[in-house]
């Protein structure tokens, strides 16, 4: 049987159940607000958002692989392209672009012009160190870790802080070979 060809991000987005982006935005805002009230320290909130994103990413990657039928990515370049074009489109309904590749091909920037998480949001002066969308960096990190890539994801540009786009830097730290949980000779 011929392998099923990978579907484009648009096609998958059209086929999944969708929900109003504003509900999503407002729920995320409620989460960030709860974290700020409980934890009070902006750094702590950043870390907690990243951790939540990590938990989501770990489960999200299964759904992503199941719905999108992408074949195994040959290298990190392809991985980044797939995340930006298919992944973001499939879940958030927006397309991102990949730029700024370094010489070895291990670091790149994912640029988001449109971000449903930050509709209606303004950072007050008391929260200037907050990475409001830090959950996204956790999601990418968690998802890639489940496919054996250890990465570091940081924010380079943030629209809530006055920049014109959202820019995430994804750096591949190492490829972890898959370990089998059992020994062959047992």
């Amino acid at each position, binding site marked *: 049987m011929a392998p099923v060809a990978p579907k484009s991000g648009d096609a998958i987005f059209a086929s999944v159940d969708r929900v*109003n982006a504003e509900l999503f935005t*407002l729920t995320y805002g409620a989460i960030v607000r709860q974290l700020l009230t409980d934890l009070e320290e902006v750094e702590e909130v950043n870390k907690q958002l990243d951790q939540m994103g990590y938990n989501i990413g770990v489960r999200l990657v299964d759904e992503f692989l199941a719905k999108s039928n992408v074949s195994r990515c040959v290298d990190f370049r392809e991985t980044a392209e797939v995340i930006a074009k298919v992944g973001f489109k499939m879940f958030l309904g927006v397309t991102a672009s990949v730029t700024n590749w370094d010489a070895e091909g291990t670091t790149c920037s994912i640029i988001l012009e449109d971000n449903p998480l930050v509709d*209606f949001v303004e950072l007050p002066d008391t929260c200037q160190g907050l990475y409001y969308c830090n959950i996204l960096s956790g999601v990418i990190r968690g998802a890639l870790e489940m496919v054996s890539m250890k990465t570091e994801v940081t924010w380079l540009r943030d629209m809530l802080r006055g920049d014109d786009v959202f820019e995430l830097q994804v750096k591949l730290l190492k490829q972890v070979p898959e370990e089998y949980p059992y020994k062959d000779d047992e």
Partner: protein
Amino acid sequence: MIGVGKIKQYTNVLDRPLSKGKQEVSLSAFAFLFSELVQYNQTQVDNIAELERRLEDAGYAVGARVLELLCHREKGNRRETRLLGILSFIHSTVWKVLFGKVADSLEKGTEHEDEYMISEKELLLNRFISIPKDMGAFNCGAFVAGIVKGVLDNAGFPAVVTAHFVPVDGQQRPRTTILIKFAEEVLQREARLG
């Protein structure tokens, strides 16, 4: 390209044009986010009542904002002053915008004058959630109850809103009912308005 200027940067978020509200995200993205919300709150509390209260508080904030957004966008800034008006606003407009469909039913309580119920066969939120037996009657619909409470409170109709599971014959999963109990002053005002 000649003639293409830089997109105007709005410094104040209130100056930006309001979106039409047609943008969508995938249901699974929302489900993941909501599950993280519930999981985080589970670590912060010791019992179910607290957990429901925290979810309700989160929903309250959402409700307050939804009311403002929808009043401005859908109703041209007209304010509801009658009880039935605000209830049907919630039952149709709010539900349609948030969940993509109007609520299944809106009923008036038979035992008490101040009780109304909005029912839904399966809340969008609860679709991917299963409650373990030891959590008893906990319902993640507390978040939706919070949204309704936020809308009502900010529209000037203070009420106590809770979410309950109601088993239905012939259906495997119970349906969810949002029970709204209005404060005394609301009923008095309603009676005065005639």
